[in-house]
């Protein structure tokens, strides 16, 4: 569903590449998280999957990127929209300003795709329930809190039913419970609707609990790739400017203190940690 072959990209006037020789594939219905320190290239990678790098930001790119059967480096952005959804982290700037109510804001993408009104209405109802926006349909999108706006941004993209949804730190404004809810919505989307989810995130506890696979970027390079249990428990994480979850840290400390066997695999989630200590 996503296929990158030897992708290297430089922003205009940049000397160092923001993406450096990236090659990987993500299959249909997979929930793939990408993590890394600030400046590692996560945002650039997300923009590239939706075609905005290089089509909007310019710069030079080599290699090939194919998403949902589209060559996103060259396909017109208008053709990519609807097939590849992009959610980024500043929720306020994702409100189009073209519509006056939450319901109409969600409808905007569908209207542009010429979805019939009869089909639009149930889809909007469904996505509002899914994103926890019930009761806000007639509010102005600009009158919502940051967290609500972030849910609206996600809903407005998901309602278009993209085959691949790319999200760049979409939970930054949400409180902890709200962030967890977003992860769980995306998880069920990947499982039940076969939507491929590609998400850049800092909240490793939820990455560990919900993602199928984790990529680690470091200075534009792909340095680790595997299931969360493997990648997030790796002793290399610190080298890439990342801190493992407390569950991993405390388990490692217990091993070092000789309280637990050094052979037991380290936990990355709460459930695994409970198992590890019992």
């Amino acid at each position, binding site marked *: 569903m996503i296929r990158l072959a030897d992708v290297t990209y430089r922003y205009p006037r940049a000397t160092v590449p923001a993406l450096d020789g990236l090659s990987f594939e993500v299959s249909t219905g997979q929930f793939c998280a990408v993590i*890394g*320190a*600030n*400046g590692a290239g996560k945002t650039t990678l997300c923009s590239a999957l939706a075609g905005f790098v290089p089509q909007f930001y310019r710069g030079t790119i080599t290699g090939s990127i194919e998403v949902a059967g589209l060559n996103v480096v060259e396909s017109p952005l208008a053709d990519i929209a609807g097939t590849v959804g992009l959610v980024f*982290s500043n929720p306020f700037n994702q409100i189009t300003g073209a519509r006056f109510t939450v319901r109409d804001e969600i409808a905007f993408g569908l209207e542009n795709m010429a979805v019939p009104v009869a089909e639009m209405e149930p889809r909007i109802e469904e996505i509002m329930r899914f994103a926890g926006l019930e009761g806000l349909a007639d509010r102005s999108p600009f009158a919502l*809190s*940051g*967290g*609500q706006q972030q849910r609206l941004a996600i809903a407005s993209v998901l309602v278009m039913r993209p085959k691949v949804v790319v999200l760049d*730190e979409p939970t*930054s*404004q*949400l*409180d*902890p*419970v*709200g962030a*967890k809810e977003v992860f769980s919505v995306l998880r069920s989307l990947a499982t039940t609707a076969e939507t491929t989810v590609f998400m850049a995130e*800092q909240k490793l*506890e939820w990455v560990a609990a919900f993602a199928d696979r984790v990529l680690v970027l470091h200075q534009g390079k792909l340095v680790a790739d595997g299931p969360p249990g493997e990648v997030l428990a790796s002793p290399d994480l*610190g080298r890439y*400017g*990342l*801190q493992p*979850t*407390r*569950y991993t*840290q*405390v388990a490692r*400390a*217990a091993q070092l*203190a000789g*309280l637990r066997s050094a052979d037991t695999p380290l936990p990355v989630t*709460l459930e695994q*940690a*409970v198992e590890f*200590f*019992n």
Partner: protein
Amino acid sequence: MNLVIDDVGFTYPGGAEALRGVSLRIQGGESIAFIGENGAGKTTLMKHLNGLLKPSRGRVTVDDWDTREHTVAKLAARVGFVFQNPDDQIVERTVIDEVAFGPRRLGQSETDALANSVAALEIVGLSDESRTHPYDLSASQRKLMTLASVLAMRTPVVIFDEPTMGQDARGLKLIGDIVEELKREKRIVLIITHDIDFCSAHFERVVAMADGRVLIDGPTAEVMARADLLATTNVEPPQLVRLAQALGLPVAPLTIDGLIAALPR
């Protein structure tokens, strides 16, 4: 230095009641984290401490100053406030001037203003960037610069609004170190945060807010142990506390060592 919030109520001009009777006493040297879901009233309360908002009822005093009787610019000498979005404040062409903006406005001598700014940049790890244009910094560096711009004001009270948002492990550690340094200097450190693990690692007292009121107020370990109450304001206890609870341990550990110590041998 002490802060007294006495039965403060606040209603926004549009009619939204954001605070419904909050009372708190804060002593010199205390470090307090304010937690709670979006819209609980945390930011509204903090804006009362430097006079950006004046109470609709009740009283806020910073030492002997009633905030109603002083301008924000004047209160800024006592209460420093680090805003969430760095781009809302950048006015100068170099990082060092941007950091010195506050100290100069407060009437510090040019020598002091520069010395304090240099020291603040050192603390946030941006010494090498002092001649850089603020907009040439990365987003997370700009955030650290805003932090420095308030530290350089050398106020007895420092308020941070979501300082860890968008920071990676290195940034988190840096901000944690800054908080520790301010605590050592016996300044009052207040933080608004959703990052519950950060707050349990660095703050002695926690105030959980919900719906414009104080839900719980107490030593961090005590507050974090109240998963039932925290859940009502959309907050989950820190990972270590949840693990201890899931393991049935009778403690609410705030550190890894604390949890290790509580494990049955």
